Each structure stands twice: as structure tokens, then as C-alpha cells.
């Protein structure tokens, strides 16, 4: 594994001086040490209807993530933990994938593939956490192939300490009437690079991404999410919300790519960012590409400080400035946190977030 510098490349490049064409060099994927990444502290629990397979399912190969092919290859070949799953039938349970970085296991470079058989229904939760100090690396490549009519939900909760680096590559392929939902919470780390790319190449395929992020200190957050529509009546929804403080630098690229053949396709994307410092650098590059006429594409963005009118409204109901701020931060995250299917995990995520907000003196 060698250093991969070009990550999260914008599908169509723009002027370099805008600095949105790809992730900054400081966010490059590190080179694998000569001695390898070492042991990982990873585990998984299968739910009914989901089983492990020894080999990478053929259906999951050849898919590119938002981070890009070079990063995918780098994680794939350098992984110190790989796990491949096949989902069959409808399952109401949750398959858990857990990793924890600590002094003895500072790096987890993982390769996961999920092959959802036709008509299956499955939910996966990836929990990525660490001890309080270790400056570790979590790099994961997750490939999802959903066969016709399959429904897959992947919930990614990243609660790393502020010294860690995080790379999160996701690739998705949804067949006819298949529906893949990603819920992504990137709430820790000094460097966070995440990119999901969905290929909707069959009629009725759908992809949802509900993402939240939090950054403070001097952290770098870089996102590149892409929905490629080539099938008829395909649908993508990509919605991001975040809170940024201190001198954090964040770039979000969100691309809906309607290609020839994607008649009646619909794609919506949005971003809602709350800024708690004038030193935050917030960049956004929403793109809607179109080579098919009969489509509906829409993007919406809002960024700024807390709305004075909203703060006054909350004050008129008795909330002091801290309570009002807390409610508004919760409001940004709640729609995504509410999608975490495990109540204990949902509470833990809220607590972690609250501690970070208090530490950054945003709350309390």
C-alpha cells in the first residue's frame, strides 16, 4: 500500500484555485508500514438471514467508491481484516460490524462486501470507535450489491477520538427496484475522508444517503458522494447536515449524474451546515450532470450561524441561549440519529456528540 494522494475527486473538474477538485494533500491515505498494519480489534455479529462467504462475491467487484479506484485498490490489497456477507430472505435483525482502535490495535484497514440476494431485506451497523488517545487509522472499503427488489440499510457510526484518521469508501450497485440506504455519521477524527458512490443502472433502483458530520479544532473533513443514474425511474436522495467549529476545514462534493437512458429519474441533494466560528472553512460543490432530458434534479444548501429569529422564538418559549443552541444542534442531527436502528447505540452516539460539543464549548 503506497500513499494515495488523489482522493474524493470531483467527477468533473473545475478551476484548481477553488480547491474542490479533490481532497487536500494533508488528507492523503497513508502508506502501509513495512511491517503491515498489525492486528485489528474487529468483530461481527450476524443476524438471521445473513451469512459470511469466504470469497469476495463476484457481484461486488468492479464497483468504484466515492474515494476513487486508487484508494479502493489500496484498501482492498492492504486490508488487515476482510469480511464478506450474503443476505437472503427478509431479516428484521441487525448485523453488527465493530472495530475499535487502541494502543495495541491502532489501525483497522477493512474490506467489507455485502451481496443482497433478490428480494432480501437486511440491516448492517458499522461501529467505528477508539480509546481516548491513540492516533490510529480506520480505513474501510464497503461494497454493496443489491439484486432486484433487495433492500439494504447500512448504518455507519464513526465515534473516533480527535487524533485518529478516518477513510470511508463505499460503493453501491442497485439492481431493478432495489433500494440501498446509507446512514453515515462521521463525528470524530482529525482527518475524515468519506465518499459513497452509487450506480443505479436498472429500472427503479434507489439510493438514499443521510449523512451527518461534526468537526472542530484543526480537523479536515472531506466528502465526495455520487449517484450515477443510467436506469429508468431511478431515484437518489443525498442529504447532509453538519456542525463545524474552530478552524475546521470541510469540503463536500455531491454529484447527481443523470446519464443517457435515465428517463424519469429523480435525484435530490441538500446540505445544511451550522457554523460556530468565523475561522471555519466550509466549501461545497453540488453538481447535477445531465445527458438525459427527462429527469428531475434538485439541490438545496444552507450554511450559516444560528438564525436570530429562531433563537428569539425559542427564547420566547423560555429556552435560555444555551438550551436554544443545544436544541438547534440536536435538530441538525436528529433526523439522521433517529434512523439508527439500535436505541442503545443511538443514545451512545448522542452522548459522544454532546461531550464533543461541550468540549468545543459549543454547549455548556
Amino acid at each position, binding site marked *: 500500500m503506497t500513499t494515495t494522494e488523489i482522493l474524493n475527486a470531483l467527477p468533473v473538474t473545475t478551476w484548481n484555485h477553488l480547491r474542490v477538485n479533490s481532497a487536500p494533500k494533508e488528507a492523503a491515505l497513508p502508506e502501509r508500514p513495512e511491517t503491515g498494519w498489525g492486528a485489528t480489534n474487529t468483530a461481527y455479529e450476524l443476524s438471521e438471514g445473513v451469512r459470511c462467504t469466504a470469497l469476495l462475491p463476484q457481484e461486488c467487484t468492479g464497483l468504484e467508491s466515492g474515494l476513487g479506484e486508487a484508494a479502493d485498490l489500496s484498501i482492498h490489497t492492504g486490508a488487515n481484516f476482510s469480511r464478506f456477507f450474503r443476505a437472503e430472505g427478509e431479516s428484521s435483525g441487525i448485523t453488527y460490524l465493530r472495530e475499535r482502535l487502541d494502543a495495541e490495535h491502532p489501525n483497522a484497514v477493512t474490506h467489507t462486501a455485502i451481496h443482497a440476494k433478490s428480494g432480501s431485506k437486511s440491516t448492517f451497523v458499522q461501529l467505528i470507535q477508539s480509546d481516548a488517545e491513540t492516533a490510529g487509522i480506520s480505513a474501510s472499503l464497503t461494497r454493496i450489491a443489491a439484486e432486484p427488489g433487495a433492500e439494504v440499510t447500512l448504518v455507519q457510526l464513526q465515534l473516533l477520538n480527535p487524533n485518529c484518521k478516518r477513510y470511508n469508501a463505499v460503493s453501491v450497485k442497485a439492481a431493478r427496484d432495489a433500494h440501498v440506504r446509507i446512514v453515515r455519521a462521521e463525528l470524530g477524527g482529525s482527518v475524515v475522508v468519506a465518499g459513497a458512490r452509487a450506480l443505479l443502472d436498472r429500472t427503479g433502483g434507489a439510493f438514499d444517503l443521510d449523512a451527518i458530520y461534526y468537526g472542530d479544532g484543526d480537523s479536515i473533513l472531506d466528502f465526495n458522494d455520487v449517484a450515477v443514474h443510467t436506469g429508468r425511474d431511478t431515484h437518489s436522495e443525498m442529504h447532509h447536515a453538519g456542525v463545524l467549529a474552530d478552524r475546521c476545514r470541510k469540503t463536500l462534493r455531491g454529484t447527481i449524474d443523470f446519464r443517457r437512458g435515465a428517463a424519469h429519474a429523480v435525484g435530490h441533494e441538500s446540505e445544511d451546515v451550522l457554523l460556530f466560528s468565523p475561522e471555519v472553512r466550509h466549501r461545497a460543490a453540488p453538481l447535477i450532470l445531465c445527458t438525459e432530458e427527462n429527469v428531475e434534479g434538485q439541490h438545496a444548501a444552507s450554511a450559516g450561524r444560528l438564525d436570530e429569529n429562531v433563537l428569539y*422564538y425559542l427564547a*420566547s418559549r*423560555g429556552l435560555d441561549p444555551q438550551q436554544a443552541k443545544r436544541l438547534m444542534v440536536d435538530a441538525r442531527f436528529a433526523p439522521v440519529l433517529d434512523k439508527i436502528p439500535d436505541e442503545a447505540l443511538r443514545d451512545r452516539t448522542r452522548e459522544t456528540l454532546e461531550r464533543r460539543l461541550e468540549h468545543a464549548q459549543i454547549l455548556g
Partner: protein
Amino acid sequence: MSQALLHVRDLKVAVEEKTILDGLNLTIHPGEIHVLMGPNGAGKSTLAAAIMGDPRYTIQGGTIEFDGEDLTDKAADVRARKGIFLSFQAPQEIPGVSLESFLRTALGAVQGKQPKVMAFRRALAEKMELLNMDSAYSERYLNVGFSGGEKKKAEILQLLTLQPKLAMLDETDSGLDVDAVKTVAAGIKAYHNENNALLIITHNAKILEGLDVNYVHVLDDHHIAHTGGPELIEQITTGGFAGILEGEDDHGG
């Protein structure tokens, strides 16, 4: 007469350096219902906003005393916790915060402790029924996608939940159909008792049906230009403000 709940003395209010109210006096006692009327742009909403503590308005003179305490320089949240409530003409939409969660947080803020969940839910369901609100609205994000009527009902639901000492209703009836006005009026009636008071800003007598109005004030020329009893409502509804305001001077309530 009991001690005044609200005592506004010689109030002067400006927004962006433009004086809206000047020399305004108003006294409200517990148990009273006051109606505030006046031509468009007279400053009715400004008065309610100034009493609530809207930071966009500058108090340039005078005092606002509430329940024996001078609140002139206090922030809106302090005033709300003391028992002042304003039903907004255009309530804010807050995505991500459900109506129920918002009401629970607000009740916790004014009471100083969080209400018990089950008891709160039961009480909320009763109030929503009174207001003909679908219980599903409690799970919806506050005012997001609500129609104009639903937003106003949500304001009255907040009034019934928070039980303030003084409720100011700023054109709560505007944009409501006949049935919705009746429902909102029933909500206001359910709220009112001898220990609290209402200041109702309206152009519409319908919302006042069933309420024992004590005073009607007409705001004009930066201050309360005329005060009378409930008979004024009919006079204004049929004859407008012109006859009433002619040759009038300042009056307190």
C-alpha cells in the same frame, strides 16, 4: 383591585431608529382580557414584541413591569420563564425538532424541571383533542409542512401547555377558516382563568366570541389613543377607527 400583572409606563420603542411607540401606557390585572385594535402599521405587533423582549426592537424609554418586577432590560427567555407568552403571527419552522419534544423542552425550561414523559403525553393528547389536532402532529417537526391553521393551533397548544400568566395573541385568527377560528377560540377559553390574563391583537370579532372582554384599546399615533369596553368592538367592526380616534388623547388600560 388586585396587584397589576403587567404595568407598561411611558414606553418608547424604536426599530432601526424609527420610533414606533411613544408614551404608551397599559395596565393589565390578573383575570382580565384586553383587546388591542388599531389601523395597520399602528404598532400593535411592536407592542407585543416589546413586551416579549424581541431583540430587534429597542426600548428607548419607559418601563415594563411584570408581576411586580421590572423586566425592561431582561431577555426574552427570562420574561418567558416569568410567565409572558406571545403567540406569533408567523411561527418559526424548526426541522429536526418534533412538536412533542419542543413542547417538553419548553415546559421543562419554564418549570425549571423536565416533565414526566407519560403524564406529559397524556396531557398533550387531551389538549390536541380539544384543538382538533391529529395526534400524529406531535411527532412531526415543529411547524414544518403545517398549514397556516395548523401553525396557529400549534401556538395555542403551546399556550395551553406552558400556562403562562400573560398570553399575548398576535392576530392568531388571521388566515383561519370559520371552523378553525372557533377551535382556536375554544382553546383560548380553556386557557383563561382568574389568575391569568390575555392581550389579544385582532381585526376579527369572531375569535372573541365566548370571551368576557374587559377592555378594548385602540392604538394610533404611537400610543393607546382610546380605551373602552367590549362595545367598542362592534363600533369598530361596523364604523372603523375614524369616529373613535377623532380628538382622542392618551389612556391607560
